[in-house]
């Protein structure tokens, strides 16, 4: 009788996790162990770590030093340089190699600690943390980085994908991120969608849907525009902290003018849009329009969520060049009088 074992991953990209989940499903007929995916490291029989990432390498070192279960599997380009008790799964993920490594892990684990085998996780979920520069999503590791990731962050890191998201509080919603549409499976309104988007990814079930199955998945469902709830969710969850992948020292510039009529008219956002059109750092923006940096950060996060933002590290001297000067006093006074006259 095969045992049911749980695999936990750390620092893997979302696409790798999704692929891995499919492969795990193919262990159902295995004689030794049936593997399932878990987000709970405490019940995992094996831990698969992306050892090619710096954080992953550090985590692996820490766990090796502790010398405790679960079975450690390093996901790496190179098979050398790992201790003997660490199994190595070579990149990229291939079914035959994954199955072989899992069989080894199962044997090793069952020889060590079988009482944990039958434990079941409270939730089986997909969680994610956005890493924009790499364009991928890394799974959360509660061992080293217990930061909460929101569903919308997972979406923002999967711009060309179709994801089906469900949680305990909501029916499944299909997000076609590339076409900025979502398909709620019930009468979920914007507030419910916003709540789902701002909920912790670790409490949601997220699965990728092949584009060929989009029509089938969304049959009889009415598509809605994703921009408005995504914008609202990003503003709501921003909390004056730049999202992952953005840094305070970077040079930010809009690549297009957000449709603020649709997203919600806000005089400050109009000003910030005009400012960000020219580009600059957060410190420069605060100097020019004298608003709290937190408000600017929230706006930058929202623009980032909708892919309206270009950002890059630039030397400070270059930051100054494109920053607009304030208009002279007489012009400012004229513009202010016009605003006052028009009530805007």
């Amino acid at each position, binding site marked *: 009788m095969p045992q049911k074992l749980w695999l936990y991953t750390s620092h893997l990209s979302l696409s790798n996790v999704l692929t891995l989940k499919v492969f795990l499903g193919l262990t159902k007929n295995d004689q030794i162990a049936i593997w399932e995916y878990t987000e709970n490291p405490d019940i995992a029989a094996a831990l698969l770590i992306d050892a090619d990432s710096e954080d992953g390498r550090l985590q692996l070192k820490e766990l090796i030093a502790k010398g405790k279960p679960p079975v450690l599997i390093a996901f790496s380009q190179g098979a050398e340089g790992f201790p003997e008790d660490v199994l190595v799964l070579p990149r990229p993920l291939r079914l035959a190699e994954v199955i072989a490594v899992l069989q080894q892990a199962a044997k090793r684990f069952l020889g060590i600690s079988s009482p944990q085998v039958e434990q079941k996780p409270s939730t089986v979920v997909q969680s994610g943390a956005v890493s924009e520069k790499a364009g991928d999503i890394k799974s959360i590791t509660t061992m080293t980085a217990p930061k909460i990731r929101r569903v919308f962050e997972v979406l923002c890191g999967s711009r060309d994908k179709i994801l089906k998201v469900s949680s305990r509080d909501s029916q499944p919603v299909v997000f076609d991120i590339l076409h900025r549409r979502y398909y709620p499976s019930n009468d979920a309104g914007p507030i419910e969608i916003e709540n789902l988007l701002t909920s912790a990814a670790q409490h949601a079930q997220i699965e990728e849907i092949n584009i060929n199955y989009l029509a089938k998945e969304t049959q009889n469902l009415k598509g809605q525009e994703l921009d408005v709830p995504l914008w609202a969710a990003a503003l709501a969850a921003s909390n004056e902290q730049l999202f992952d992948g953005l840094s305070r020292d970077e040079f930010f510039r*809009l*690549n*297009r*003018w957000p*449709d*603020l*009529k649709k997203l919600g*008219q806000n*005089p400050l956002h*109009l*000003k910030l*849009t*005009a*400012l960000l*059109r*020219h580009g600059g750092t957060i410190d420069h923006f605060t100097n*020019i329009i004298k608003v709290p940096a937190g408000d600017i950060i929230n706006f930058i996060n929202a623009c980032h969520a909708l892919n309206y933002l270009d950002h890059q590290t630039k030397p400070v001297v270059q930051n100054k060049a494109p920053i*607009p000067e304030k*208009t002279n006093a007489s*012009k*400012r006074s*004229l*513009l202010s*009088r*016009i*605003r*006052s*006259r*028009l*009530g*805007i």
Partner: protein
Amino acid sequence: MKQIKFIFTGPPGAGKTTAISTISEFPPVSTDVFSTDGLSSLKEKTTVAMDFGQITLDNGQKIGLYGTPGQQRFKFMWNILVRGGLGLIVLVDNRRSDPLKDLEVYLENFSEFINETDAVIGVTCMDLKDTPTLDDYQDFLQKLGRIYPVFSVDARNKEDVLLLLSALLACLEIS
């Protein structure tokens, strides 16, 4: 003293006269004639010289609202009208055969003025024809290396016209 003004431009039938009348203190003074070309199916009259509206500030200063004639054969008027202009409002009729081309033409013809001031774009009649979308307009501007405010507007709606002016003012305050 040079008249300070906002300039409304765009192809015939885009809603320039209507937009000006929406916010002007008095019904715009228009130099309309009956349309005799293909436009007659869309509108009975068309502007041949300019539209003129006005708002008065609390210090008594008058701000002109000038609409250019839409047809390109009246192009010679455009350079005259922009003198003293604070900024440009381009209205584009989404029902026309190639509204993106229309936009390009007006941005190009007013490029010197826009470089000195700024511009905002209002797309009208999107309720009647929803393509190109606002994303298409933004993609198009991105290809031209420009970023301007673009909104779907109804020229009869005061809030919409004020949104255009508010965005333009925000740009002018920063530039």
